[in-house]
C-alpha cells in the first residue's frame, strides 16, 4: 500500500494550473451562453488513507459474513478524535498503537474462527475440502479469493493469494484441520492494511494529462463508505473491474443504484450520528434524583428518535433539509413519550406535534436538549455552542483556563438561567463568547436539562427572547425559523457531507470552488439531501485526487505511525507464511 500511495504523491502544480484555466474557460462559456448554472469545478479532492471507523469495521464484517458474526465481536477500532466537526475526519489522522493492533488481531482471530465453525462453514464457504483433516488448496483458494476481494475491496494480487493459500495449507497440515488453516489465512486478511485502511489509490487520469484519478476500486470504496458507510458490494466491485465507474454514464448508474438501495439509510444515519456528535450518548447520563423519568433507555431512544426523524424527512419524504429545524413530525417510543407527556403505542410510532406545541424541529427534541445540558440542569451556553458548531460550522472557543465560575455559582438569588447567565454579560472576559451562544440557548429554556417541557423555572417566568445573527425572536419557534433560514445552514451541511464523502476535512483553499458549486446545486434542487449526495458522488472532485501530505507520512514519517507498522507485520506474515 505504501508504494501505491507514493504513486499518488506526484506534484500536480502544472495540472492544477491547467484545470484552473479550464474552469475559467468553462465559466466564460457558460457566461456567454447566458446559462444560470455555475460551472462544475474540477478541483480534485485530497488523497488520503483512512482507518476504518468502528461502525465501518462492523459493517464490513456484516456485509461479507453476516450480522451474527459481526455482532459477536466488539469492534476493535480505536476511538477517533473529532476533527472539523466529524469524528470520521479523525480516521485520516489516527495512528495505531501496538496494543490496538493486538486488539485488532484478536478480533480477527475471533471472526475467522466464527466463519469456519460448524455453524457457519457450510453456507459461508463456497466449497468443502476433500478431507477436513488435511490441506485443500483448491477449496482454500476459492474461499480466500472471494472473501479477500470483498474484504479488501479489490481483488487480491496473485502473489498475495498464493501466499495466503500456502499459509492455510501449511497450518492445516500442522494441525490436521483444514478449517483451522483457513481461519488463520482469513485472520491474516483481516489484519492487513488493505482491509483496515481505506486507501485512495490513484492512477493517471487519461482525460486530463498530469492529473490523477482514483482507480476504479478506490472510487468504489469511496462511494460505498460515503453512501452506505460500508464496503462495496459485488456489483460495485464489478463496475470497478470493468471500468464502468470511469465513464460518466457508468458512474451515474452506479450512484443511482446506491441511492435507491436500502443501505443508503445506514449511511445517512451514520453521517448524521457523527455530525450531531451523538457519540456523546455513549456516556451521557442524567442524575436520576433530578430527572427520574429519564432512564438509559430514554436517552438511547432520544438518539434514535432524531435519526428516525432525519431519515424520514430527508430520505423517505425527500424534503428540504432546512425544514428539519421546523418540522413537527417525529417518532415516539414509550420511554420517550413519558418525557414528552404523550400517550403512545408500543414500539416506534409516528407523531406530529400540534402547531401550538413548543416542540418544533430538531432543536426541541430530547436528544439535542439533553445532550447539551448538565446532568442536573439545562445549559443555554452548551445548547447555543452546539447550535453554532453542529449546524453552522462555526467554532466557539473553549472557556479560558482561568475562568472564574464564582460569579455564576454565587448568584444564588437568580431563579432562571437567564438571570444566572447575566453575570457573563457584565464580565468582558466572558461576554465575548457567551453573547454568541447564550441567546440561542436561552430560547430553549422551556426545556429542562433532560428535555422535558417546563412552563416556569423555580416559579419564575422564562424569558425566551433572543437573536441569532440579526434575526430577532421571542421564543423557540422564532429560533427554529431563524436557524432554518440562516444563510450558513446549507453551506455547513455541504461542508460536512463533502468531508464525510471524501474522507477528511474540506480544505478552505483547495475545495472552496467545489463547495460553492455544491451549495449552489443544493439550493437549486430545493436543499434535498439525495440531490446533494448525487452531486458530490458524480462530481470531478469526488473521483480525482490531489497529493495529500498525510499520505507521505505513510512512507517517510517517523516510526510510530501505525500503517507502517502494519505493513511490517503484514510483510512478516508474507515472508513466513501464515503462522502464529
Amino acid at each position, binding site marked *: 500500500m505504501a508504494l501505491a500511495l507514493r504513486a499518488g504523491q506526484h506534484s500536480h502544480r502544472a495540472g492544477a494550473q491547467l484545470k484552473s484555466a479550464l474552469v475559467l474557460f468553462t465559466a466564460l462559456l457558460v457566461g456567454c451562453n447566458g446559462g444560470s448554472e455555475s460551472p462544475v469545478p474540477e478541483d480534485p479532492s485530497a488523497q488520503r488513507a483512512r482507518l476504518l471507523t468502528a461502525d465501518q469495521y462492523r459493517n464490513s464484517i456484516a456485509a461479507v459474513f453476516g450480522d451474527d458474526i459481526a455482532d459477536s465481536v466488539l469492534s476493535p477500532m480505536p476511538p477517533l478524535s473529532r476533527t472539523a466537526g466529524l469524528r470520521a475526519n479523525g480516521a485520516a489522522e489516527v495512528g495505531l498503537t501496538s496494543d490496538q493492533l493486538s486488539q485488532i488481531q484478536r478480533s480477527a482471530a475471533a471472526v475467522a474462527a466464527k466463519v469456519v465453525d460448524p455453524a457457519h462453514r457450510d453456507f459461508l464457504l463456497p466449497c468443502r475440502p476433500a478431507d477436513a483433516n488435511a490441506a485443500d488448496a483448491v477449496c482454500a483458494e476459492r474461499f480466500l479469493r472471494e472473501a479477500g476481494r470483498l474484504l479488501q475491496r479489490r481483488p487480491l494480487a496473485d502473489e498475495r493469494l498464493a501466499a495466503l493459500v500456502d499459509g492455510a495449507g501449511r497450518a492445516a497440515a500442522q494441525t490436521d484441520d483444514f478449517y483451522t488453516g483457513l481461519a488463520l489465512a482469513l485472520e491474516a486478511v483481516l489484519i492487513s492494511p488493505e482491509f483496515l485502511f481505506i486507501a485512495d489509490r490513484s492512477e493517471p487520469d487519461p482525460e486530463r494529462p498530469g492529473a490523477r484519478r482514483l482507480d476504479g476500486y478506490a472510487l468504489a470504496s469511496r462511494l460505498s463508505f460515503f453512501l452506505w458507510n460500508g464496503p462495496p458490494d459485488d456489483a460495485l466491485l464489478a463496475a470497478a473491474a470493468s471500468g464502468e465507474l470511469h465513464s460518466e454514464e457508468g458512474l451515474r448508474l452506479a450512484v443511482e443504484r446506491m441511492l435507491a438501495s436500502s443501505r443508503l439509510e445506514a449511511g445517512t444515519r451514520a453521517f448524521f450520528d457523527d455530525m450531531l456528535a451523538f457519540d456523546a450518548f455513549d456516556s451521557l447520563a442524567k442524575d436520576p434524583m433530578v430527572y427520574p423519568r429519564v*432512564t438509559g433507555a430514554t436517552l438511547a431512544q432520544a438518539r434514535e428518535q432524531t435519526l428516525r426523524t432525519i431519515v424520514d424527512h430527508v430520505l423517505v419524504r425527500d424534503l428540504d433539509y432546512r425544514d428539519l429545524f421546523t418540522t*413537527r413530525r417525529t417518532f415516539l417510543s414509550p420511554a420517550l413519550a413519558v418525557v*414528552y*407527556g404523550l400517550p403512545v*403505542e408500543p414500539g416506534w410510532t409516528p407523531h*406530529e406535534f400540534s402547531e401550538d406545541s413548543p416542540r418544533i424541529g430538531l432543536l426541541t427534541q430530547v436528544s439535542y436538549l439533553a445532550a447539551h445540558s448538565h446532568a442536573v440542569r439545562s445549559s443555554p451556553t452548551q445548547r447555543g455552542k452546539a447550535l453554532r458548531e453542529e449546524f453552522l460550522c462555526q467554532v466557539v472557543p473553549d472557556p479560558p483556563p482561568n475562568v472564574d465560575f464564582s460569579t455564576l455559582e454565587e448568584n444564588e438569588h437568580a431563579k432562571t438561567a437567564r438571570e444566572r447567565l447575566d453575570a457573563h454579560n457584565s464580565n468582558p472576559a466572558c461576554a465575548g463568547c457567551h453573547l454568541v451562544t447564550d441567546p440561542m440557548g436561552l430560547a430553549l429554556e422551556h426545556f429542562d436539562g433532560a428535555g422535558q417541557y417546563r412552563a416556569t423555572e423555580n416559579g419564575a417566568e422564562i424569558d425566551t427572547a433572543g437573536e441569532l445573527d440579526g434575526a430577532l425572536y421571542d421564543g423557540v419557534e422564532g429560533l427554529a425559523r431563524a436557524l432554518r433560514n440562516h444563510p450558513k445552514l446549507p453551506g455547513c451541511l455541504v461542508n460536512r457531507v463533502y468531508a464525510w464523502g471524501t474522507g477528511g476535512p474540506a480544505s478552505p483553499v483547495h475545495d472552496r470552488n467545489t463547495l460553492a458549486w455544491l451549495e449552489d446545486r443544493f439550493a437549486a434542487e430545493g436543499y434535498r439531501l439525495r440531490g446533494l449526495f448525487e452531486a458530490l458522488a458524480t462530481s470531478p472532485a469526488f473521483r480525482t485526487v490531489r497529493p495529500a501530505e498525510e499520505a507521505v507520512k505513510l512512507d517517510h514519517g517517523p516510526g510510530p505511525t501505525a500503517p507502517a507498522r502494519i505493513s511490517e507485520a503484514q510483510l512478516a506474515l508474507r515472508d513466513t507464511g501464515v503462522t502464529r
Partner: protein
Amino acid sequence: MRAVVALGAALCLVAARAAAEAPPGNTIGYVFTDLFWSVYQTDGAEECPQGFNDGPREQFAARFPAPEKLSVEETRLAMEAATWHPSGAPHDFAFHEIESTYAYGLDLDGESGPNDFRHPDGSPGIDNEIYRAVGCIIGFRGPDGVEYIFQSKAIKDEAYNRMMINLTGVDSLENDDSITVTVYRGRDELLTDATGEAIMPGGTQRVDRRWGESLIRHTRGRIEDGVLITEPIDGLVIPWQNLQVPSVQRIRGARFELRLGQDGAEGLLAGYADVDTFYYQLIRNDSTHHLANGQISAISLYKALRRLADAYPDPETGEHTAISTALDVRMTRVHIVDEADDGRDDPGGSAFPVSGR
C-alpha cells in the same frame, strides 16, 4: 430557614393549584402498581397477643410426630387433600385471630356493630374481616411476609395483572361532585424510573379489549378535598398474579377511596371478597413451599374465612359467601388508550397523530 418555609409554602400552593385544575380532556388515568390486603400492624404486634399462627410445617410436625411410620398417603397427601378440598368444620389447631380495636378499611354496610373495627383515625364501623383472619399470619404481614413481598412485585413484573382506572368528566382533582370511573385491564408493561425503584408516571397503557373486555366496570364517584370516593361496583374481578401463576380475585360491592394526585393515587379498595375465590387464589399461587415460608396454614385459614365471612349469604344454606376486606392500593398516572375510542381504523386518518408537547 425563612426562605425554605416560603419555598415550601409556594410549592404547596403550586400543588394545590395544579390539583384544582382540570386534567387535560377532563380525564386522568391511573395504573395499579401496588395492591395488597390491608393489614394494620403495630411495632410490637400488639394486635396478635397470642402470637402468630403456625404454618403447614409446624402443623405437620404436630400432627405426625413419627411420619416415617406412616405412608405418604397418610401424611403428606392427606394434608394436600385437606388443602385442596377444604372444610369449614373446626379442627384441633388453635387459630389466632386479630385482637385489635383498629383496622384499615371502609364502613361497607353503613353500620357500626360489635364486630366492626375502628380506623386508626378514629372512624368507627370499619368492616375488614379478612384482616381479622390473616392479620396474625406472618406471610401476610409487611415488610417481609411472602405474600406481601410477591404480590406487589408481581404487579411490576407481569402484565396479566395490569389493572387501571380511568376518571372522566373531571373538572378538578380537588373537588368534583360527579365523575365517571371505569376499571380496565391494561396490556403494557410498567415503566421503571431512573432510580430503578419507582414506576414513573406518564406512561401509556392500552386497554385490553380482547381478554379484558369482561373485566371492564363502570361506576360513579365524587372527589372531596382531593379524595375520590366511588359508588360500589358489584362483581369487580381483579386479575391476580403471583409467582407466575395467573388467577383472580372477586370483590363484591367494591369501592375505591383514593387520594388523587397529578402523578399518582393512593388509598383503599374495599368490598367483600368471595371466600372460595380468595382461598383458591392463595393455594393456586402458592405452593406448600411458599405457604410454609409464610407460616400460612391454608387449611386453618379456610376455616377462619368461613367462620368470619360476613356478607352475601347463600340463598339456600344461609352461609355467608363473602368476607369484608380492604386492600391497600397505590397507582401511578398513565395515559389510557382505548382503541375503541380512537380513529385508527379510519383509512383517512393521518399516519402522524397530532397532539401535545
